[in-house]
């Protein structure tokens, strides 16, 4: 399968370390502790293409999204919009940041927190339109722009939603308002951070369907962050897997979910609840692999970060960081694991 579509947003060597405060005893020591939230991440988003990002909780998925939206200053690495470095000097305001935000919009993980409780839907959307100069002239044009926007996320008729406050909306409706706000900028890339995590299955389905439609109609480049690997399989073209701040595997979704290569991805896929496994009396739960805690991101393990939990651990894994190796089953499938050193050759 060849990827021909145009790259909208690309990240190279994206790294984010959060400083942590010292504890009493460490006051006098020199070492500065940081959380290695994201380390050396490469990623591309293409027009009309959905890229899924999965991984365990705390592996840095949201941080990647926020870095791409330039809400956090980067520790290092580069972000390219249409091939041009788009880094703004500070993460705060400024004209360049606004220009950037028009092209790259983000949907936040938590729909309950990302809408201001004191403002109506109308306010949220009007602002988004105004900022990006799409509010048109006069009341009439503004109203039709709003209606169009809400129509896109299937909140119709617009009148019954415009004057509601976030708390008057259901989770799914809020999520869609957040999406509508992101779309108001008419972006080229959309960073959707777990847009369905809090919804129950029936509502979840509606939101995913909406995003898929948008992708097809508007040719959006979408980053879809999720815990739910099954939905990545159904919804995304590409899937990337993160573990402890690093990308460990990538490739087209069907392959990654059906034939996971990296031991962590395998663990992830195996752990996902599966009603088709032997049902009842919890038989399927009794497995022994992949036990242990996620690693500390303040002092991450040397070498491959998964090695303390890896059932296939080799000596090399403990010291050397694995680069990307092609897995070999499809063109785009790769894994950062020494197990595939051979396959590459």
């Amino acid at each position: 399968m060849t990827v021909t579509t145009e790259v909208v947003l690309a990240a190279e060597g994206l790294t984010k370390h959060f400083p942590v405060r010292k504890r009493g005893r460490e006051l006098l020591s020199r070492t500065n502790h940081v959380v290695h939230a994201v380390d050396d991440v490469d990623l591309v988003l293409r027009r009309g293409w959905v890229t899924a990002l999965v991984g365990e909780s705390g592996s840095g998925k949201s941080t990647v999204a926020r870095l791409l939206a330039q809400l956090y200053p980067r520790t290092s690495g580069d972000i390219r919009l249409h091939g041009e470095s788009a880094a703004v000097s500070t993460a705060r305001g400024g004209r360049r940041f606004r220009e950037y935000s028009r092209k790259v919009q983000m949907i936040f993980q938590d729909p309950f927190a990302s809408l201001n409780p004191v403002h109506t839907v109308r306010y949220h959307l009007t602002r988004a339109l105004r900022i990006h100069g799409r509010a048109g002239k006069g009341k009439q044009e503004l109203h039709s722009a709003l209606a169009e926007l809400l129509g896109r996320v299937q909140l119709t008729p617009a009148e019954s939603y415009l004057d509601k406050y976030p708390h008057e909306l259901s989770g799914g409706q809020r999520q869609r308002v957040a999406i509508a706000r992101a779309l108001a900028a008419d972006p080229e890339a959309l960073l959707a951070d777990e847009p369905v995590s809090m919804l129950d299955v029936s509502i979840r389905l509606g939101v995913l369907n909406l995003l898929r439609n948008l992708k097809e109609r508007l040719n959006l480049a979408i980053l879809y962050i999720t815990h739910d690997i099954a939905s990545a399989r159904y919804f995304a073209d590409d899937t990337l897997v993160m573990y402890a701040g690093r990308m460990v595997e990538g490739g087209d979704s069907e392959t990654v979910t059906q034939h996971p290569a990296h031991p962590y991805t395998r663990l992830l896929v195996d752990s996902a609840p599966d009603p088709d496994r032997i049902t009842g009396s919890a038989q399927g739960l009794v497995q022994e692999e992949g036990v242990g805690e996620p690693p500390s991101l303040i002092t991450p393990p040397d070498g491959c970060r998964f090695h303390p939990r890896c059932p296939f651990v080799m000596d090399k894994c403990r010291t050397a960081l694995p680069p990307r190796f092609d897995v070999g089953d499809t063109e785009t499938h790769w894994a950062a694991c020494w197990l595939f050193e051979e396959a590459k050759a």
Partner: protein
Amino acid sequence: MSYFLRRLAFYVFTAWAALTINFFIPRLIPGDPVSALVNGMRGQIDPAQIQSLTVLFGLDKKQSMWEQYTSYLAQLARGDLGISFGNFPLPVSEVLTQALPWTLLLIGVTTVLSFLLGTLLGVFAGWWRGSWIDGLLPATTFLSSIPYFWLGLIAVALFTGVGSFLPASGGYEPGLVPGWSGEFIDSALRHSLLPAATIIVASVGGWLLAMRNMMVTVTAEDYITVAHAKGLSERRVMMNYAARNALLPSVSGFGMALGLVVGGTFLVEYVFSYPGIGLQMLDAIAKHDYPLIQGIFLVVTLAVLAANFLADLAYMALDPRTRKEG
């Protein structure tokens, strides 16, 4: 810069800024100590004295404000607070040593007491929301809206007088020598009853309200329900789970209140002529006694800072979450 260094820098900066302001403000008052003294006596002092007093206070040497400021800082650095004009020729430090214990004892103790009492009542009011104890709220609000001094005056009028057990004013029976004698302590205690009661009555409401609202908020937290689910005794849930958490915001408020002991309640000292810092301060302001004003402000500033620091520490001790954050 580490957290503690930053904190320290903050304290030093605040102290310096406050001291500087405290230095300049009193000097902006028109008039000078001598005329204030003469003026205050309204003809009871011979005007020929102006000259002798001016010499006495060292005000005949014309110094620029800046020179005064630098010599003030130098003096402070030596721990010398200067000589009080109003109590000439006593050093400020001596005046403070005399007044401070009274303030600390009376107002400090009552502030602590009213905090404890108000907080405890607040715990009950918040826990049994809607019960009779919660019904006390309007009454305590009413009481806490009354100015201290008014309450104090009324108390004096109602409860003191010839033959009353409660003295109307002062810190102890005139004529007694302050010391650890039983008679003195008895007298000091008796003199402190009324002002103490006034402060407590007027300030307990604030604590009660704050604690009650926090209790109500905390009661809705999941861990309280869990505590109930665990089948713990009611007292334990109320005290160890609800109150213990609800207390946290009050702690920093308490720190501030302790620091404001002097600045906030000096009117009580005024009304009861309680021989503390507050009374001295009013007197010093009236007499343009710069050295004493500065000395008192210094004490207040340090007290607030110290109280803040203690509150920080207490907060850290009480809330393990802050320990990580530093």
